[in-house]
């Protein structure tokens, strides 16, 4: 059997497997691809996850197919042990492989960069949902709702500077309005992960980490800490609510009244806090 026949057979097997796999991904997996469509950020992440799956699965199958084919077809038969034929380079195959993989990487880089640079509340993009540091690469237009996420061992609290700086234990957001999260910590390093919203931003003491999203559906979403932060890290879990605009107005008004005694003692709103005592004694 010559090498051309082997290559033809392996390519046929690979193409069939790749088509079947991509059809399964497209019709069965894609509709359930996490994190879903609860916000524009999550939708974009889901779309990119689908693109990655559709492109990378054939590549992975190609490697596995040729590997398995070689193991089966070119195995040493029982009996005498002798050297195989000498290997020679194939310039066309090498250039093809480098060219295809380079193209794939560049395309994915362009897709990711466009996603990062698009305005967070534009129809075209969402700003990726990750923490962008204190100076965000892309800014939304209009008047986003600012929510400060304050991490501490071991609970998140939330501050709303546009509503008198009130702080709350629970997180509520209005549907359809862009949210500008300012994530920080007052002790160790944590990570604010609002899973269904597609938002994940590190909470670092003395740092302001900005992330954007626009909730598109009402309901509950999970909030977890995604950075190992001590004894009760695993318990640093809660649920947030996306409410109607009227429901949010009612909720924040109630929060302002209920938390008024504590609000009186809160420090002036700032993007970072350096609470004392830094080192407790006794």
């Amino acid at each position: 059997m010559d090498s051309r026949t082997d290559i033809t057979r392996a390519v046929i097997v690979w193409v069939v497997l790749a088509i079947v796999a991509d059809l399964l991904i497209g019709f069965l997996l894609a509709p359930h691809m996490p994190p879903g469509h609860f916000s524009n950020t999550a939708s974009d992440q889901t779309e990119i996850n689908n693109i990655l799956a559709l492109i990378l699965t054939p590549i992975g199958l190609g490697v596995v197919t040729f590997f398995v084919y070689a193991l089966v077809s070119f195995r040493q038969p029982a009996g005498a042990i002798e050297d195989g034929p000498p290997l020679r380079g194939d310039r066309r195959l090498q250039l093809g492989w480098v060219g295809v993989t380079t193209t794939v990487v560049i395309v994915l880089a362009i897709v990711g960069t466009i996603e990062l640079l698009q305005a967070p509340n534009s129809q075209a993009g969402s700003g990726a949902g990750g923490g962008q540091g204190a100076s965000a690469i892309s800014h939304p237009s209009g008047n986003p709702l600012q929510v400060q996420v304050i991490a501490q061992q071991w609970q998140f609290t939330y501050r709303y500077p546009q509503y008198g700086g009130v702080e709350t234990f629970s997180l509520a957001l209005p549907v359809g309005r862009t949210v500008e999260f300012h994530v920080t910590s007052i002790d160790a390093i944590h990570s604010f992960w609002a899973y269904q919203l597609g938002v994940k931003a590190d909470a670092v003491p003395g740092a302001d980490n900005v992330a954007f999203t626009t909730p598109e559906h009402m309901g509950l979403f999970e909030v977890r800490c995604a950075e190992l932060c001590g004894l009760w890290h695993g318990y640093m879990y809660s649920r947030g609510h996306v409410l109607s605009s009227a429901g949010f107005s009612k909720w924040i008004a109630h929060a302002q009244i209920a938390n008024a005694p504590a609000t009186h003692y809160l420090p002036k709103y700032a993007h970072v806090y350096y609470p004392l005592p830094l080192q407790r004694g006794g």
Partner: protein
Amino acid sequence: MIVILLVAWYVVGYVISLPPTVPQASAAGVTNVTVQTVASYGRPPHPDWVSYLVKNESGQWVHSTIWKVPANSIVRVTVLQYDGQSGLRNPFLGQPRGVVGGTMTVNGKPLKVLNPDEASHTFTIPDLGVSVPLKGIADDAPNQCAVTPCTLGQAHYTITFEFRTGKPGLHRWQCFVPCAAGWLYGFGGPMQTVGWMDGFIKVV
């Protein structure tokens, strides 16, 4: 096999290192829990660690932070607070929350919010939305407690509040003040060890 043995050794070591579960007496739907917070336990293995102690059904002090209370009942907590003022890292926690009537008492007087600078600890059960700041004694208070169990004749505040337990479950509780003296930012040692400033409420 070695890995399995190491994992088993770790799990068994963790379980037997937990403090005992202390059931709390209940009558007419109300469970009384009496605890004390002390600046230093005063005994081995960590005599200088800040800690909680709890009274058992016989009225004896037990060094444990795992307490068992009935479901769907009211828990009436009395805290004898012997530790000094160190301040809340987050002043938001100066307001009692998740407690019956939205208030606590300090030496018999109702209090809606505590000056964050005067706090010594908090008693917080995040799952149940319960968070209560505990007022600390003044630095120059006379007759301060050094060795547990502290007595009523020593400087302290008596803090009371009530909360509802709800359905059965296991809930962690903790102090939110970085109160571990000598540890970086006050968050090591007793703040990271069940039996000292962290524990469980077993609602059964």
